[in-house]
């Protein structure tokens, strides 16, 4: 035992080479677009060139006559779905909307909305001309424009929910929600200083490098096979079944490697279409999006406006927080404004909070989950405002946060009382880091921001099979996006007491392992990890039973230590230890193969906190912001594989830097996306960045056997405000709108100069 009472761990906390690593560095790993079936056709989607249009008619006859074209489909080939709420990656969505988003039925609601699809023997033939007669309608792109009276209405059956009395005219505001604790108005009365400002963020795409891709095969007996990359093979199975009206038992989904998701692959786009095209053509159909299609047709996260008002005492105690969030959801209701509300002030010990949220539809692609959905948007406003407060008070921004930080026993600003959390520790780690004290030059500035994400648990299954040579196979149903096979193998090896190289983790298809909710919400290491640990413990119990049988002693007289069964004490008898290999080799003679499955619904995911510190240099001539150094501290509970924890933190931080500085959708006046490619939608490249320093804090999560908390989402929460605060520190200008791209920075500098003249 370690001094703090935690057990000594031999595998957890080490840095073994990931089990799928060699496949991925040699090009052998099969990603979504790498798989093929004999005789497969190429499927392609025809997309709307209009932001908002009524489909008068679709004529597929010419396309069907083209040699090589084997099937053509439109929304008429999809069953009409009645409205039914589903809980997808980031929150409630409606299957009817999901169906309509998969293929437009009566109206197209954004540039890029799928209207038809073709399967053909060649890509050229699949580009077949399909004649669509559109009636172009007025469109609306901006979230606040969409809310004004007289704005083009996307859905004439959408009436704002959450209003009393219920409205009688349709609106683009799907929902209004209010989240309230304490008495905010009274609390502001007690404040000495009040900061109030409005901020705006741009919708940003998850930007995974692998476009969506799948192969589907519909057999004559109605059995469906789907091979695809996604954040959850069980999610694909469930949604395809629902959207096509097929029994789940008819569908088998085999997960391929996934080339990044970040939330953007928590739903289906191509899979239902590929199944329909396969059914109509009688052949397997492969579909892959181009990069342009990824940008035009798949979900970014919301952009939104964030109005923030915070009140504080002169000593720096924050006493009240009020905020209004307006999130655009894209073409259908379902932005992450709910979690945006709840996370807004979660870093702080604050009892009087009110947040009003609006979920607003616009003529843009329906948003999808993106890392800590909603939190980065509200955090940008709140953490910018807290920085402004620090300036007003003349307080160090880290000290101000430490004074107000949530800790164990604090009633969270979203309600419940926090248990063991590491918010203060991440702030202290920033203060103690050398980066905090590096002297800055002219036009250089330092910014800090802290962030929070809930993390989730949920349903997971794992099977552990002991092979006859004493090695083990661990099967789970969660696609490995960032090294989770390694974590699963490590936790199994820890329990079994064997080398991690003797454990082979696999990601199994939907017919070969128990149900697992998708890979998202930072849940896999926590929840699926718990299933792996439970299954491994059952295996150990079985191994002890086999040893007891072999020795003819009671099972509770057997202990498992370092991969061996040993007698529990001298009273138990004098026996030579039986290793896992010994017991596995003889398992046939002691009762049969040794295996165990655990299926559970993990509760009590540990809340995650992180604090980021960034130094920037602003070029006043060009408006370019250079990141000089970057530090991200985060509570991981317990880092199972520290390298991949660091990697998650670094990657999240850099996505946040892109969100802060460059990433945005540019629409022309017709509502067409003008930058659907990586040249003009600029994600960070290596030369934009310094090394990303990390400090991993470990405040164990008591609900996980090794103390793990989710780590993947927290790191994208603080960067935008940290960058804005650093720019403010560098040039004395508070930028309130993302991205803080060179033209915007330059404009702000010019305005500052003009004002000084």
């Amino acid at each position, binding site marked *: 035992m370690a001094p703090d009472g935690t057990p000594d761990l031999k595998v957890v906390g080490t840095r073994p080479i990931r089990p799928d690593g060699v496949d991925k560095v040699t090009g052998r790993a099969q990603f979504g677009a790498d798989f093929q079936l004999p005789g497969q056709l190429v499927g392609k989607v025809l997309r709307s060139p209009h932001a908002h249009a009524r489909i008068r008619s679709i004529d597929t006859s010419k396309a069907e006559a083209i040699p090589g074209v084997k099937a053509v489909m439109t929304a008429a080939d999809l069953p009409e779905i009645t409205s039914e709420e589903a809980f997808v990656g980031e929150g409630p969505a409606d299957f009817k909307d999901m169906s309509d988003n998969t293929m437009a039925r009566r109206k197209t609601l954004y540039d890029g909305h799928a209207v038809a699809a073709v399967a053909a023997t060649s890509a050229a033939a699949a580009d077949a001309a399909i004649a669509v007669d559109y009636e172009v309608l007025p469109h609306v792109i901006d979230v606040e424009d969409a809310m004004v009276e007289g704005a083009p209405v996307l859905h004439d059956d959408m009436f704002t929910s959450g209003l009393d009395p219920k409205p009688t005219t349709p609106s683009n505001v799907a929902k209004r929600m209010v*989240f309230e604790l304490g008495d905010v108005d009274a609390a502001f009365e007690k404040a000495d200083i009040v900061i109030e400002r409005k901020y705006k963020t741009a919708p940003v795409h998850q930007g995974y490098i692998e476009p969506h891709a799948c192969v589907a095969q519909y057999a004559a007996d109605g059995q469906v096979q789907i091979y695809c990359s996604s954040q959850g093979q069980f999610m694909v199975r469930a949604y395809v079944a629902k959207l096509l009206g097929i029994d789940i038992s008819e569908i088998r989904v085999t997960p391929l490697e996934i080339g990044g998701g970040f939330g953007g692959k928590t739903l289906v786009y191509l899979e239902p279409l590929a199944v329909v095209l396969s059914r109509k053509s009688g052949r397997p159909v492969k579909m892959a999006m181009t990069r342009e299609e990824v940008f035009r047709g798949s979900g970014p996260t919301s952009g939104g406006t964030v109005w923030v008002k915070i009140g504080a005492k002169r000593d720096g105690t924050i006493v009240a927080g009020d905020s209004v969030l307006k999130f655009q959801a894209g073409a259908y209701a379902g932005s992450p404004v709910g979690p945006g509300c709840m996370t807004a002030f979660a870093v702080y010990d604050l009892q009087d909070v009110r947040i009003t949220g609006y979920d607003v539809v616009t003529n843009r692609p329906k948003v999808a989950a993106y890392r800590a959905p909603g939190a980065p948007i509200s955090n940008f406003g709140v953490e910018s405002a807290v920085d402004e407060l620090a300036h007003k008070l003349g307080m160090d921004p880290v000290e101000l946060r430490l004074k107000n930080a949530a800790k164990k026993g604090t009633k969270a600003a979203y*309600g419940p009382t926090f248990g063991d959390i590491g918010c203060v520790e991440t702030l202290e780690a920033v203060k103690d880091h050398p980066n905090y004290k590096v002297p800055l030059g002219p036009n250089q500035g330092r910014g800090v921001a802290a962030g929070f994400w*809930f993390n*989730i648990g*949920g349903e997971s299954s794992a099977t552990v099979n002991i092979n006859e040579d004493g090695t083990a196979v661990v099967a789970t149903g969660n696609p490995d996006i960032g090294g989770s096979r390694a974590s699963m193998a490590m936790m199994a090896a820890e329990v079994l007491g064997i080398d991690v190289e003797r454990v082979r983790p696999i990601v199994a298809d939907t017919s070969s392992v128990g149900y697992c909710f998708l890979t998202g919400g930072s849940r896999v290491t926590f929840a699926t990890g718990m299933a792996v640990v439970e299954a491994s413990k059952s295996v150990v119990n079985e191994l002890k039973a086999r040893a007891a049988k072999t020795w003819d002693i009671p099972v509770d007289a057997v202990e498992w230590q370092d991969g061996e069964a040993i007698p529990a004490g001298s009273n138990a008898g004098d026996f030579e230890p039986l290793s896992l290999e010994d017991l596995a080799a003889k398992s046939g003679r002691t009762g049969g193969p040794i295996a165990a499955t655990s299926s559970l619904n993990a509760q009590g995911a540990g809340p995650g906190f992180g604090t980021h510190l960034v130094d920037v240099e602003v070029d006043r001539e060009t408006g370019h912001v250079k990141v000089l150094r970057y530090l991200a501290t985060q509570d991981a509970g317990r880092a199972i594989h520290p390298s991949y924890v660091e990697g998650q933190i670094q990657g999240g931080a850099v996505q946040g830097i892109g969100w802060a500085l460059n990433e945005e959708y540019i629409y022309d006046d017709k509502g067409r996306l003008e930058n659907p490619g990586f040249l003009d939608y600029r994600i960070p490249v290596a030369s934009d960045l310094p090394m990303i320093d990390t400090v991993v804090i470990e405040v164990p999560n008591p609900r996980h056997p090794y103390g793990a908390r989710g780590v993947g989402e927290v790191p994208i929460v603080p960067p935008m405000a940290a960058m804005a605060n650093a720019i403010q520190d560098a040039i004395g200008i508070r930028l309130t709108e993302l991205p803080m791209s060179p033209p915007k920075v330059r404009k702000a500098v010019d305005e500052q100069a003009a004002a000084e003249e």
Partner: protein
Amino acid sequence: MARIVLTHSACRQYTGGMAELESDATSIRGLVRDLEVRFPGLGRQVEESMAVAIDGVMHQDDLTAPIPEGAEVYLLPRIGGG
């Protein structure tokens, strides 16, 4: 007896704006039943769409979770993730 706190308008719409109430329920399933009886629609809302934090620990889709005597229970919108 547990203290039930409704922070969100999605729940308060069923209680006429009431933000706090008490319940004798000893599990989330019991709470769902109790709320449905007292505020028709609220029980279903909690079962389908809300997370339940019991003494600070978040539960989703977990009807069997016990609610201890004197517990502080928050009803929050469900959390997803990316």
